[in-house]
């Protein structure tokens, strides 16, 4: 079964617009996805019909809003195969979810001599929170190195996982390389050494069927806005017993059970971690995004993106002087994005010419500066796909890249010297 992309595209109003007089080709989905009408309408419906603060009002609107908000928690749990909605905490974004876990779990548990294991391909959001935690606790950081074609060096794992390793925090899918990491295997090996595993699923949750019980991970973080939902909503999944034992991250309303002038006791999980009025409207609209993806089917989404990626890789190889990053081949270990550079051209110049052609890509360091250093580049161009992209759009990307090369010519410093 292939996706009915034409029908899907009609649900996304923004895809009908033009940019600089050309039809928009939106290939920056790894940064944020576009939103279907169902999600946009859900925001308006909430504010038009049942806007109220949740969990405290004793009037009809408050009850409706609370029910809708908590229903999305249930839906989120089902979407990732979590055993209970009590293990789902809503945050602002994946970054905040990781910070919540790092602080709530790590501050009281880590000390000098303990180690947090990361990888060389992490986004800053799964790196800097651990740097802060290490500074605060005296724990140290270690890194799984990557191969030249952008895979984790799994043969180094046994040496890196020691009894000192308390946590492995690793991305499920690299936002630069497209690499899909073998999480289940990593979890098994980490657990054998007694380390917990947190998975950064910001790039995988939008594109793959996720099952946290099958993966076996202890915590997992992702963002609504990369998966058809609004900005301002993130999700932390963590095992219930971990959440029970963790300290609150933020203090305030909603997260308490009782408050005295000088002390307080905490609400039950997950509300213990949701201080203050949450992002009610966007959480409710996020539920529509999950529903949309469920109706299409995550297996279909993934298959569609793999076909687009295979087509893109084949066509990108036509270009003179192109360097592609990430795993060779078009196998299952690669998600729906491609990073590349054209010899002699800075990705920002490439991005500017593509923009003039209506093609939106990302150019820069992708919030992964250590990985850029490992690849030996300052920046890359990146095209990232989603369920509404087409083969024709990939072809327009290639045409626009040819146009960029024609526009700049081959600069003197990359011409072979005579």
């Amino acid at each position, binding site marked *: 079964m292939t996706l009915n992309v034409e029908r899907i595209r009609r649900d996304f109003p923004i895809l009908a617009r033009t940019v600089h007089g050309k039809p928009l080709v939106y290939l920056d989905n790894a940064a944020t996805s576009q939103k279907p009408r169902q999600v946009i309408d859900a925001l308006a419906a909430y504010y038009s019909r049942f806007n109220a603060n949740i969990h405290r009002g004793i009037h009809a609107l408050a009850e409706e809003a609370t029910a809708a908000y908590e229903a999305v928690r249930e839906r989120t749990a089902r979407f990732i195969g979590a055993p209970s909605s009590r293990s789902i905490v809503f945050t602002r974004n994946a970054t905040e979810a990781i910070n919540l876990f790092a602080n709530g779990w790590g501050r009281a548990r880590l000390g000098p001599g303990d180690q947090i294991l990361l990888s060389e391909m992490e986004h800053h959001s799964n790196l800097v929170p651990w740097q802060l935690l290490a500074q605060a606790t005296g724990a140290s950081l270690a890194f799984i190195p990557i191969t030249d074609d952008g895979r984790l060096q799994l043969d180094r794992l046994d040496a890196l996982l020691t009894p000192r390793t308390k946590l492995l925090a690793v991305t499920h899918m690299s936002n630069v390389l497209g690499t899909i990491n073998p999480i289940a295997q990593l979890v098994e090996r980490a657990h054998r050494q007694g380390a917990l595993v947190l998975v950064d699923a910001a790039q995988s949750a939008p594109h793959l069927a996720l099952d946290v019980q099958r993966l076996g991970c202890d915590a997992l973080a992702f963002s609504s806005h990369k998966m058809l939902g609004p900005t301002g909503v993130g999700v932390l999944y963590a095992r219930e017993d971990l959440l029970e034992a963790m300290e609150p991250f933020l203090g305030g309303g909603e997260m308490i059970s009782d408050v005295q002038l000088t002390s307080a006791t905490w609400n039950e999980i997950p509300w213990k971690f949701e201080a203050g009025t949450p992002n009610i409207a966007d959480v409710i609209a996020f539920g529509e995004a999950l529903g949309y993806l469920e109706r299409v089917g995550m297996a279909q989404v993934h298959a569609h993106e793999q076909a687009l990626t295979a087509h893109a890789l084949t066509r990108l190889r036509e270009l003179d002087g192109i360097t592609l990053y990430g795993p060779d081949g078009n196998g299952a270990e690669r998600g729906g994005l491609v990073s590349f550079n054209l010899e002699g051209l*800075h990705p*920002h*110049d490439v991005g500017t010419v593509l923009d003039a052609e209506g093609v939106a890509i990302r150019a820069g360091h992708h919030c992964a500066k250590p990985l850029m250093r490992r690849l030996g580049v300052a920046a890359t161009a990146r095209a990232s796909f989603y369920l509404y992209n087409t083969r024709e759009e990939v072809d327009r990307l290639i045409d626009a890249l040819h146009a960029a090369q024609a*526009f700049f010519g081959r600069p003197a410093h990359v011409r072979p010297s005579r």
Partner: protein
Amino acid sequence: MVEQLDELYREVILDHFKNPTHSGELPDAQVHASGANPLCGDELTFHIRLQGDRLAQIRFRGKGCAISQAAASMLAAALEGKTLREAGRVVEAMKALMRSEEPGDSVDLGDLEALAGVRKFPVRVKCAALSWNVVEQGLEAHAHGAH
């Protein structure tokens, strides 16, 4: 190619990018100054040989986007042979140009005037500005060291 692109990448800018003038190094120059835009990876190193208060010879090396590299080439061309005081006025005029202010009539910007189009692309202004920021810092550091 659309108009919008031609405004940013004026012909003279593309010429300097493809065939930079003043590219190279001057190991025995008095002023060596480097700078980078860490977010996009543009890098420039200027070498300036001074003769009295004159910028007798300027060479640069760098890597990065077309705007940053062309700006370096055009700046080197504009400043070579000028006095420190004149060079300072060119730098001030370029800063004014980026702020959309009129440069003083008496300042000859040469090819640098082509960078006026960059103003319409706010994220690219820092690409152009890297060159004069590096030169200004290098000359200032030299002046402080010389006193």
